[in-house]
């Protein structure tokens, strides 16, 4: 056997770190062939059923330690998975992911072919290192992370390729325009993202408010200035001189002007009380404007609350802040429009209290969201519910760490978002979202903050997973896709009815109970297989260690016909004697069947039912709609049937009538023939199936004749014309080409080496090893002609000679003619 030649130019990875770079291949079924002894197999079967019913172990049942669900296995080396992770919180605009940023860099590469691929690999490798660094070393600015990863890449590469890869990365770095903080998965990322969205929202609100306050301030100031200008103090020569300014002070006689103005009929119109009140309002507005500027520059601070009183304090503090502002603005508006009536409005404003603020008053100032951890939920839930019921526009971010809880007596709790939804608060916006979907989270935050009422965002941050199991991102994505923590948005701001307010579109396979995806594996005989397989709540439970008691791995020799894939098992009405299983894989790639207990199955079914309810609310296979549809179909079918019967009856009657008339006519014709003496033969009946047209009138005939072309062209001529037109078009296309320059029809080159042997500087191969003119000045016209003659597929066109002094040109031009 020949040895493979060197791999010059390829991006070789160092031996160190091979394991972590290698994406796992398909898992393979391991173990010996199933038992053939029926008695032995019967014992095995009984053991499996015992475990299923009551969780009793037997010898052949092994724990699932070290196994992960088969769907998650290909993503085991998470740093090589280009998921929507980690988040890059850019200084402006929507949050991006590291993957999308490096994807843009690759997209912008100005290289083609193999060179592009080499550079692409360098960038992907660097991206993978950045992902690893963020996971292990925490958040850091993108530019800093890039440089840190560069050092790691340089350390990991072999010396002979280090320079080229680093060159690729340095060049790519120059195209990196984004700045921002790269944050690992988890609560901090969620809070940072919320901070960005809340700050953006606050900026918009504060800008509006500042504009409104500024306008009112200007109006009131102008009113006071005008009024002040009418007072005797304003008319003193000194004040008049000061109002004109120094530039023109010599041009005026301010003494005379003062006297003149004092004689006028005008005087101040504002009462002292109103002036004092307006000055007081102005002062309040200035104070609020100052506060707004402070708020705009201050970073959002989300203290996690764990006590009911903290929530009440937050609500009360926001109310107090809003109260002063709203009061000042309302008074200013009345003053500015000269509608303030001390007798009417004075007592009203004196009696005005913070608890009288309307919903719209409360949303004028930015609201700082309240962050609650799942573990504190039981403590704060009653107060939270009270706040939600009061319709105060409180915004709550609920950080969910364990979407499934096995601690309760009921077995497994419904996620809090779905519980709130079930409580039926039509004026509360409720969102449930997994942090694995970055854009969805940002969108949900923005919706919650914009909604003019209470809003709760239940966010699964996947923190129950960690270095010993699957990546937290996958945990959060898996919880969403296993329907355990499905995405939903119930936003009354989008409509009062379910159809308008409720959305579940961000989930996968909407019309299915469980999403289905293919699993690739190698069977016991090493053949590669691919099967559609559902990802269920059971798979999610098997991914963590909390429910490990409900699962047992079974060796291949104990596989029997009563083992049924879980997703099929759940569809069965009769399950007696059957044991459901899922597929799990160990870290070496061994694929196993894992049976699960009834408790796990029961809980999975409940998750499925809950998802079904969400489907109905979201309008997916809504049972009411389906029933209505069925009724309507039946009604339409009945109507159609009746209509068909009516049409048939009508046609039958018409046929009978026409048959009768025809029969009479025939009889009368025969009778006329017999009685009239002249044997006029009856008109021949029309041929079966033919259509008898009435005779055309003379005018119509003339028209018809006129419509006939005077000289119809034969079909073949028409085709030829078509071809001529086509050729003409082709000719037009080629008209712009110049044949003075030599050229090669590269796509038709067969890489025969004839031309490159003649002059390798004149002729060269492209990246597909097909010839082109590399440098027309690097050879002679003679060489071009010679190559054209030798080219076996005649694709070299010599053009015209570049050098008019080349010897024997006349002869060469003649030889070149057939190839032009």
């Amino acid at each position, binding site marked *: *056997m020949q040895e493979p030649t060197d791999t010059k130019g390829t991006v070789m990875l160092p031996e160190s770190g091979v394991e972590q770079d290698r994406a796992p291949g398909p898992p393979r079924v*391991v173990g010996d062939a199933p038992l053939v002894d029926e008695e032995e197999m019967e014992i095995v079967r009984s053991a499996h059923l015992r475990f299923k019913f009551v969780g009793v172990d037997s010898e052949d049942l092994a724990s699932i330690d070290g196994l992960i669900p088969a769907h998650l296995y290909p993503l085991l080396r998470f740093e090589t998975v280009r998921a929507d992770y980690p988040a890059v919180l850019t200084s402006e605009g929507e949050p991006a992911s590291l993957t999308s940023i490096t994807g843009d860099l690759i997209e912008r590469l100005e290289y083609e072919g193999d060179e592009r691929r080499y550079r692409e690999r360098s960038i992907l490798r660097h991206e993978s290192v950045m992902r690893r660094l963020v996971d292990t070393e925490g958040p850091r600015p993108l530019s800093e992370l890039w440089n840190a990863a560069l050092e790691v890449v340089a350390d990991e590469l072999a010396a002979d390729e280090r320079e080229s890869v680093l060159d690729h990365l340095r060049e790519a770095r120059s195209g990196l325009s984004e700045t921002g903080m790269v944050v690992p998965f988890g609560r901090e990322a969620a809070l940072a993202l919320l901070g960005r969205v809340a700050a953006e929202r606050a900026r918009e609100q504060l800008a509006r408010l500042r504009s409104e306050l500024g306008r009112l301030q200007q109006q009131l100031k102008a009113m006071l200035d005008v009024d002040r200008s009418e007072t005797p103090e304003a008319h003193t020569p000194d004040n008049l001189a000061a109002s004109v300014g120094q530039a023109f002070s010599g041009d005026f006689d301010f003494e005379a002007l003062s006297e003149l103005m004092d004689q006028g009929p005008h005087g101040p119109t504002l009462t002292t009380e109103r002036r004092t009140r307006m000055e007081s309002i102005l002062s309040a507005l200035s104070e609020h404007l100052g506060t707004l500027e402070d708020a705009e520059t201050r970073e959002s601070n989300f203290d996690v609350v764990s006590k009911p009183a903290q929530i009440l304090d937050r609500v009360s503090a926001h109310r107090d802040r809003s109260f002063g502002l709203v009061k000042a603005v309302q008074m200013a508006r009345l003053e500015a429009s000269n509608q303030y009536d001390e007798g009417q409005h004075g007592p009203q404003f004196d009696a005005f209290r913070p608890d009288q603020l309307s919903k719209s008053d409360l949303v004028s100032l930015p609201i700082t969201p309240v962050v609650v951890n799942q573990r504190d939920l039981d403590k704060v839930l009653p107060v939270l519910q009270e706040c939600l019921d009061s319709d105060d526009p409180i915004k709550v971010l609920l950080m969910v760490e364990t979407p499934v809880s096995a601690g309760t007596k009921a077995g497994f709790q419904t996620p809090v978002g779905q519980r709130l939804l079930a409580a039926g608060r039509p004026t509360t916006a409720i969102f449930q979202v997994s942090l694995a979907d970055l854009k969805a989270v940002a969108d949900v935050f923005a919706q919650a903050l914009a909604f003019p009422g209470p809003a709760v965002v239940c966010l699964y941050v996947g923190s129950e997973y960690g270095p010993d199991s699957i990546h937290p991102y996958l945990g959060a994505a898996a919880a969403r896709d296993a329907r355990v923590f499905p995405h939903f948005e119930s936003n009354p701001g989008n409509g009062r009815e379910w159809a308008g307010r409720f959305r579940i579109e961000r989930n996968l396979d909407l019309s299915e109970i469980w999403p289905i995806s*293919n699993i690739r594996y190698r069977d016991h005989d090493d053949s590669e297989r691919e099967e559609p397989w559902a*990802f269920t709540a059971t798979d999610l439970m098997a991914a963590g260690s909390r429910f490990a008691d409900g699962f047992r791995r079974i060796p291949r020799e104990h596989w029997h016909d009563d083992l049924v894939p879980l997703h099929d098992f759940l569809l069965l009405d009769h399950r007696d004697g059957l044991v459901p299983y899922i597929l799990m894989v160990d870290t070496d790639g061994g694929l196993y069947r894992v049976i699960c207990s009834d408790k796990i199955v029961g809980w999975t079914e409940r998750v499925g039912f809950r998802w079904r309810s969400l489907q109905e609310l979201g309008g997916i296979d809504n049972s009411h709609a389906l029933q209505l549809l069925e009724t309507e179909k039946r009604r339409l079918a009945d109507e159609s049937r009746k209509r068909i019967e009516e049409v048939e009856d009508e046609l039958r009657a018409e046929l009978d009538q026409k048959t009768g008339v025809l029969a009479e006519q025939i009889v009368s014709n025969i009778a006329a023939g017999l009685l009239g003496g002249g044997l006029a033969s009856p008109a021949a009946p029309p041929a079966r199936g033919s259509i008898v047209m009435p005779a055309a009138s003379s005018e119509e005939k003339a028209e018809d004749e006129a419509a006939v072309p005077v000289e119809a062209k034969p079909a073949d001529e028409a085709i030829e014309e078509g071809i001529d037109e086509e050729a003409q078009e082709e000719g037009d296309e080629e008209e712009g080409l110049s044949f003075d320059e030599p050229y090669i029809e590269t796509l038709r080159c067969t890489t025969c080496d004839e031309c490159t042997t003649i002059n390798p500087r004149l002729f060269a191969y492209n990246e597909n090893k097909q010839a082109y003119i590399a440098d027309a000045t690097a050879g002679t016209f003679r060489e071009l002609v010679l190559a054209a003659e030798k080219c076996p597929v*005649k694709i070299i066109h010599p053009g015209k000679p570049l050098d008019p002094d080349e010897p024997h040109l006349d002869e060469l031009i003649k030889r070149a003619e057939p190839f032009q």
Partner: protein
Amino acid sequence: MAENLFGVTAQCIVDLKQEYYGLDVYESAVPRWCPGCGDNAILSSVQKLCRDEQLPPERTVFVSGIGCSSRFPHYMGTYGFHGLHGRAFPVAEGIKLRRPDLDVFVNMGDGDCCSIGTAHWIHAIRYNMNMVALIHDNEIYGMTKMQASPTTPTGLKTSTTPYGARLEPLNILAATLGVTNVSFVANVPDWMPEVMYNLLRIAYRHKGLSIIRIVQRCPHYLPHLFDPIVTDPDKSLILLHDDGLQISDELAKVYKDHLVHDPSDLHRARELASMEDKVPVGVLYRNEEIPCYDDLMRPQRSVTDDVRQEVLESEFDKFAVNVN
């Protein structure tokens, strides 16, 4: 079907250990074929296929017999086996049977495959193992100085037929299509690089033995043999189908005689293979339902490292000396 479970598609999983193989990876020694030889075109297309399919060089094998075309493995930067005259198929079958994970290609000339190797050719078709076989058909023995091969046209004067070949040439396509279990047959001349590449890719992705007969020019001994076909595009009948060959608009303008041919139609494929006035170009026949011998004979027991070690140990034990 959820293509992006967990927000991740199959394309999102980057195997960084998996190198990128550029065209240069598949280039080895400088080809010593004559300038203008059709083998150059075949080599170039095969190298492009390897690059575009990213075939790992260490898991790709080219096997050949004897003849000009059988120099092929030397010019590929992969593993190769330059074997015995007419015996490329048995060697390739052995490799594939033992190492089904390898991509195996077979290169043979018309003399190599259809004369001394005929028995192996027939049975390779019947075995239908998952490989690609290229028959470089230049209708002459070139390497041994122009003797008549089984496909040499009637009347052609060669060193073994100085008064002209007497026999009708063997029709490789028709003969292949007549053998039990045939599963893929295509035909292409070497001067249509785009078609050759497309057919190679279809053949590579076909499950079973893919036989491509390549009409190949020998510029040294028969420089004008194929001139009538090379110079007249109308002599080529391009077989097009959604499940077969598709060509670019540019090529379609040059080769204007097209025929939509369903590659699952064996009877029609045999008719096309027997055409005398034109050269059919494209996939004549394709059937993935034919069982593959390598699947039928797949070992029931996985060959794990433990199994390998066990076998090796038992072999070594035969040479061990019992010191007790």
